């Protein structure tokens, strides 16, 4: 009994030594084979990569990303060690694009927003994987997703994720909420998209959009 108590105390001590407020809530495609074929017709395969802010740049990178987002990373879905799953899409041995999803706090738990991007970081398609919302049917409507096609991080920079409005006229303001009763989830989707684009710019696009970012 004493030994067992000692074991438990030591386990707790090890945990205490290493515990920081970190999380590891990843976001994988439910069925990568099917989703890749659907989002990139003509592709022949994909490679799965895991990237996290703490491994790439630690606290300074997190602060940089928050600055570009215009909001703090908070909660279980946005800690520094979240393993972001990036799918590199191939046609033969040639890379033709990316798929990347992020978790975002929705009205009823987490939602998952996936983007497929071309090699320049333009959105080819947008879709919700996980979405528990009273307006799920309207938000999953392909007409809603179509509004994101062709946008990139340059279009999302003026969008303020805190107020839900553009600081200057921008294309994101033109995206119509198909379900006004689900405004929380609509704004969560826009925040998730901006976050997704910033992370992709940092992780795989070589920060090609950072020159357009205007810090206040």
């Amino acid at each position, binding site marked *: *009994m004493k*030994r*067992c108590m*000692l*074991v*438990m105390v*030591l*386990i*707790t001590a*090890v*945990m205490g030594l*290493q*515990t*920081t*407020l*970190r*999380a*590891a*809530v*990843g976001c994988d495609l*439910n*069925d990568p*084979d*099917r989703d890749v*074929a659907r989002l990139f017709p003509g592709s*022949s*395969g*994909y*490679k*799965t*990569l*895991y*990237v*996290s802010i703490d*491994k790439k740049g630690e606290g300074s990178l997190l602060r940089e990303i928050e600055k570009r987002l215009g909001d703090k990373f908070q*909660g*279980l*879905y946005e*800690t520094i*060690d979240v*393993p972001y799953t990036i799918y590199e899409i*191939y046609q*033969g*041995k040639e890379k033709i694009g990316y798929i990347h999803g992020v978790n975002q*706090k929705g009205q*009823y*738990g*987490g939602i*998952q927003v996936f983007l497929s991007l071309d090699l320049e970081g333009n959105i080819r398609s947008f879709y919700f*994987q*996980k*979405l*528990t919302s*009273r307006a799920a049917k309207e938000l999953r409507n392909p007409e809603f997703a179509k509004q994101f096609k062709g946008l990139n991080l340059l279009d999302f920079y003026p969008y303020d994720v805190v107020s839900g409005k553009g600081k200057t006229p921008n294309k994101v303001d033109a995206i119509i909420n198909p379900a006004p009763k689900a405004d929380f989830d609509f704004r969560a989707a826009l925040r998730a998209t901006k976050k997704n684009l910033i992370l992709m710019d940092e992780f795989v696009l070589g920060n090609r959009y950072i020159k357009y970012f205007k810090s206040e």
Partner: protein
Amino acid sequence: MIYKALLTGMLCYMLIPDLSHGGDHLLYFEAQGISGYSQREDEVIFYSRSQEDVMQKPSLGFDYLQRLSHQSGDFGAVAIQARVAYDDDNFEFQLYNAYLKLKHKSTDIWLGHNRPALGLSSYFDSHGLVLSTLAMNHFGFDRDWGIGVFRNFLWGDAGISLTTGSGMPLHFKGNYLFSIRVSRGILNQENYNSGFSLSYGKLLDTMGYHLMEDETEPFAITGVDFTYLWNQFENRFEIMAGKNRAQNSFAFFYRFGINLLNEGRLKFEAQPVYLKMGAEHTCEISMGSAFIVSGDVTVRTMYHFDYPGDDHKIIFQLYYYRKV
């Protein structure tokens, strides 16, 4: 012995981060403390179900996933998930995931220790949880040794497995288990999944790593399971019926859960289970809570009552799971 094992585990944990810097794998460290009180035993206990079962006991472990790729994409994965658990003044090595998965077109083929294609436990991950499923009540196995095939479809998924029917340990005494499960609905997208399972074979009677009998016993079970998520509510339901260990058997399972607070940090669950094997009837009522303190730390509690065992148990778990 205890101190050496513990020291080894701690050293491994300290060293692991230095080994993990690539982008094609995930590695998690896991630690848990379990304690509780059993009215029947009239003492403090350090397990959630029973001394013979593997889950849950105070333990240190890891969870590793390695993607296998070539120049034009992924072709498979290797998964290893293991623990060293404290077991009645001894340390027990427990291997959960230990499989190689290869992709052929859109089909996954796995070989090793994985989830057989039977019922709710074929996809519902109970690895860190204290409430138990039917697979932990002798209706199937949470993990088993063998080979399996799995494929997703637009309407759901299907899986087939041929395993040893021995669960955690690997034995060859004429034992085998053939299972097939077909389901409709994609849980991550459509918030529901309903499955139909058939399973047939000759099983060895094992509890955790303990082989209870040398002789195999026939097993022929049909099952249906259903999971439905709605707003902050979760419902999991399963029925199994047929021959289990040569006896007419029936099992019923229902788990209701509600997620509260921001990001579902607090969860309450309630679960009735009814089991019938031959003339033996068992009823279990479990109620639990889980509070996510941080992304790495979860505190769980459980109250459990079973009849006719007439045991009231209260269990506390401190669970730590961190990416390294």
